[in-house]
Structures are given as C-alpha cells and as structure tokens.
C-alpha cells in the first residue's frame, strides 16, 4: 500500500537506473530534505547546535570511512588521525588568511595525501595486518600533532578557529553552521549513493571481494587502493575541518585520538558496512544512545531512590557504549541498515505480507 510498485513503468534506461524508482520513496526523500532545510524554523537552537549539527558532520565522516571499509573492504583504524590532519591544516590555512572554503578544501587535499600514505601497507597486507598498521600510523600522527609546535601551536595548545565566511556571507550563526553541516552530509551522501554505479565503485567492490583476482582481470590494484584511501581521506579531512570550524570552533589533539578512531569504526559497523543510510543511523546511534540511556539510568535510579557513587556514574556512558556495540554485533551484525531494510521490506508488501514466504 505504501511502496506501491505496480504501475511504475520505465520507458528508458535513465529512469530504469534511477536511484529511487518508487514514487513513494522519492516523495519520502523530498519530505526529508524539506524538513532538514526548514529545521531551524521548528527545532530549538539547543537541539540544532548540540545534536543535529554534530550528527550531520559525524555522518559525513562515517560516510567517508564507509567508502573505504564498506565499499573497498580495507580496514582503517586510524581515521581520526586523517580528520585531525584536515582540521589542523585548514585551521592553519585560515589563520594565514586563506578564504574559508579554500582552507577546507586544502585541508581535505592534505588529508588525502597523508591518507594515501596510510594506504601504503594495503599494498602488501590486508585484513588484520592492515588494521594494525593503520593503528600504528594513528599513534604516529597523534604524536606528530602534539610534539611539533608549528602544527599544534605549542604544547597542549588549543588553536581557535577563525570566524568562517563564504563569499562575504558570515557563517558564524547557529543556523549557518547547521546549513553547512547539512550541505556536507547531503553532498557526501549523494556521492556515495552514486559511486557504486560508476566504474570506480565497481572496481572498489572487485578489490573488496578478492584483490588478487581483480589483479588477474587487469585492475591496477596499487592505483585503485591508493585512490580509495585518498578519496575517503579527502572526505575525512573535509569533515574534520568542518567539525573544527562549525562544531568545536577550536582544535586540540584530544579531539581526534584513538578512541575517536574506534568510535568511527563503531559508527560504520553499527550502521551497516557499505550502506549510506546506515552511516547516518550509526553516527546518530553512537552519538546519542549512550547519552539517552545514561539519562534513563539516572532517572530510574532517582525514581528507585538508589544513589550511585559519582565515580561509577562517570563510567556508565563507557559501559553503555561498549555494551551496545557488543550487543549489536552479537544480535544484528549487519547493522541498523539491515533493521531499516527489514522494516522497509515489510512495508513494501504490506498488507499483502502473506504472499511472501
């Protein structure tokens, strides 16, 4: 009844290959986009700044990582280091006078270059060893950012981001920051949805399945693995720099440490490897679920008049975060995207579910 597919006829290849061929889904996308664009009108400022903006920015970063892990099949445990490179580079460029837009793109390009270096071990190893070498590089980049005063601005310094503006339009207000985040998320999402239909996407999928077989049929494995790392790192660098400008408004080394890398991998896996909507779900889940559950726990404890010592209270978000990931991996390894897929499949044939067995 909802996802009515009968009567949808395609008369040319273009409409046949369209991403959203069911009219109901096109309508849904349109409503969602309109709701997102009109959000500042009906959503409180606090909600916009603390929840929506970071969610969109982290989703964009998760999409970049999903390109590498979900589509190209390379494990990357050092993504936060890439985001840090992008953030620091763009902030230094902006402080040196480069216009905001160019600084962000420049940060992304530098992140892409360094990200390809992260991909060097991918030429020799895959899987576990690749994960560990990216982990090692995360530590090295972390250390470089802290120790080199030219980058970090002195020991343990916080670099404040200059006020961003595009073409004279100041981007300092909350709404402007939200729109920039929304633009990034939509652009990255569009890119990822389309990339699997292109040559590059198919090559990456071939690399993911069996890279030596891909080499046998003539794919330049070295070039395409480097390209995957570079493109994904560009997205990561841009999201990192926009996080620094739009959300944190300053940059410190702790913002992009190892635990952030692990959080990004958790977002991608909980969302669902290779799924665009999964990245949005995963980012939202990892960001918000610990907060919500901790509030519920506190409310429950208060209702039952139990007093939890403060030291335990500080650790509860950590336990919830780790516990949720464990439960998710054990319960639904394909992630939130599969949950969404199940719901969508159910609604597609509702109320004629009895026809499918």
């Amino acid at each position, binding site marked *: 009844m909802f996802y009515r597919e009968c009567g949808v006829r395609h008369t040319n290849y273009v409409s046949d290959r369209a991403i959203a061929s069911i009219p109901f889904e096109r309508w849904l996308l349109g409503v969602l986009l309109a709701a997102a664009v009109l959000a500042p009108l009906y959503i409180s400022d606090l909600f916009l700044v603390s929840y929506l903006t970071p969610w969109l920015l982290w989703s964009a970063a998760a999409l970049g990582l999903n390109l590498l*892990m979900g589509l190209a099949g390379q*494990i990357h445990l050092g993504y936060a280091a890439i985001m840090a490179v992008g953030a620091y580079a763009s902030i230094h460029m902006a402080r040196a006078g480069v216009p905001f837009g160019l600084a962000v793109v420049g940060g992304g390009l530098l992140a892409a270059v360094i990200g390809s270096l992260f991909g060097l*071990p991918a030429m020799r190893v895959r899987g576990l060893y690749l994960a560990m070498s990216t982990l090692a590089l995360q*530590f090295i980049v972390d250390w470089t950012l802290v*120790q080199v005063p030219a980058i970090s601005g002195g020991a343990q310094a916080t670099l404040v981001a200059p006020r961003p503006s595009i073409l004279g339009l100041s981007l300092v207000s909350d709404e402007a920051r939200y729109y920039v985040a929304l633009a990034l998320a939509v652009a990255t999402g569009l890119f990822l949805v389309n990339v699997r239909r292109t040559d590059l996407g198919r090559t990456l999928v071939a690399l993911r399945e069996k890279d030596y077989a891909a080499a046998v049929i003539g794919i330049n494995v070295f070039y395409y693995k480097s390209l995957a790392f570079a493109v994904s790192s560009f997205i990561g660098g841009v999201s990192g720099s926009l996080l620094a400008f739009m959300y944190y408004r300053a940059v410190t080394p702790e913002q992009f440490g190892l635990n952030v890398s692990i959080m990004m991998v958790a977002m991608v896996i909980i969302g669902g490897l290779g799924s665009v909507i999964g990245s949005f779900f995963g980012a939202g889940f990892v960001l918000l679920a610990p907060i919500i559950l901790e509030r519920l726990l506190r409310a429950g404890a208060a209702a039952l008049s139990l007093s939890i010592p403060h030291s335990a209270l500080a650790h509860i978000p950590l336990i919830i975060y*780790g516990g949720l990931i464990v439960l998710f991996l*054990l319960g639904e*390894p394909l992630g939130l995207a599969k949950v969404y897929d199940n719901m969508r499949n159910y609604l597609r044939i509702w109320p004629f579910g009895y026809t499918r067995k």
Partner: protein
Amino acid sequence: MLFLAELAINGGLVGLMYALVATGIVLIYKSSGVVNLAQGAFVMAGGYFAWLFVGRWQLPVPVGVLLAGGAMGLLGWITERFALRRMIGQPLIMILMLTLALEVVLRGTFPPVFGVDTKPIGSAAVQAPIWWGDILINRTYLVGGVTAVAVVVLLSLFFRSRPGIAMRAVSDDHLAAWAVGIPVERVVAFSWAASGSVAAVTGLLWGSVQGVDWSLSLLLIKALAVAVLGGLDSLAGVVLAGLFVGIAENVVSGYLDPVVGGGTKTVVTAAVIFFTILFRPYGLFGREVIERI
C-alpha cells in the same frame, strides 16, 4: 656507554614483561585466529583481581596468583563462549570491533567496581634497586622479566604434553583437528581461559610496577608491537621480539626524549608495528598465510 647499558638492560626486562602480555595474544591467535584487542583490558582485570587477593585480602602470593588466574580464566572462557563463538564466520572487522568493544566495557566496569583510585600491589619499601657494578636495575622489572621467561618456558613445556599437542593441532588446521577427534571448541575455549590466566599473572606484575588502574589497558599497543614483530603465532618470537621492542623503546626514548620533548616511546612502538608490517608482515617467526583464488 654506561647509560646505554643501563637503558638496554632495563629496557630488555620491561620488554620481557611486554612479551608476557603478548603471550596472551599469541595463545588466542594460535588457536582461534582472532587477535584479542581486549588483552590490555584482560591484564587490567587480572591486575584488579590480583590486587583484591594479594593486596586487599593479604593472601599469600601463590594463593593469590592461583585465585586470580582462576578468576581470569573464567572471564576468558565466558568471553569465548558467549561473545566470540557467535561471531564465527563473520568478517574479521566485526570480530576486531567486538574485542575493541569488550575492551571498552571492561575498562568501564572494573575501575568503578574495585575503586577508581590507583591500587598499589606490594609495599614501596621493597623497591630498592639492584646495583650491578655501576648499573642500576629496577628490582620489579627484574622479577617481572624472570617471571615472563618462566611463563614462556612453562608454556613451551605444556605444548609438548598431550593437551598441548592437541592445541597445536587446532592452531594448525581446525578441520583436520576435528577429523581426528579433537574437540576444537573446547580447545579454543581453553586457550582463551589460559590467556586470561596469563593476563592475571601479567596484571600482578605490572600492577606492582605502576599500580593497578585503567591505564594498564594501554599495554595493548606495546603487546601488539611485540606480537606483530615476533610473529602472531610464535611463542619463541614473542620473547625475542619483546627484548627487541623493550630495548629499542628504552634506548631511543632515553636519547631522544630530552631532544624532542617526550612521548617517543609510543612512536617507537608504532614504528615497529608499521615497518614490520610493511617489510615482513608475518613477523620474525610467524607463519605465512598463502591465499589462493
């Protein structure tokens, strides 16, 4: 010169203690093919149990070690039985993520339950260093290094016994081990339990070095460096690699730290991992995995 020798000797002893943590990783990888990224958290948990039995309840050390080893063995067994067994056949990244999440959960549960303040094991009075000529040797490191070598020797002896040979068979080929009647699931569970018990001993040793708190879980990256360099499935490699990593880390940081401003230890560890994987991925003594189309 004397400075170098002192750095090298103390570094070697610390490296042997890293090798003890790495032994747990190698044990699990040998039998189940999973790199346990929660091994650092296991060591932390073992340290907390050891503190409870030896430090808080003042039981004699051998009794405390046995009890802590038993408790951690149980934890390892539970982890394998209820978490890892359901992930058989899943992509590697899921299993890695599971162990990482386990690490987070352990790091979040143990400190509040046992108390977040740093717990000392052993009294400070026994910490007088040993003088070898003009070289200072840290007594705790010496005890730790000797214990590490003893544990590795014990494990090598164990691998010559009948259950040990069964474990070696399982680490070689699961299907062939099943075919000859070895209960692979039980052996894998046992290896996880054994790794937990080794982590308990390691936790006791490291707890006496730096006190027991959450930061013990940071030993993971050092243990990974040792395990990768030595070969993820080689026990002999773990000792040699531990010596190398410990010495390299201490010597390099001893000379570079004043110049650069600190933190070079982590860089050395990370560089060891990176260059080993780049140039000799399977480590010094690891077994090469050949994939076929």
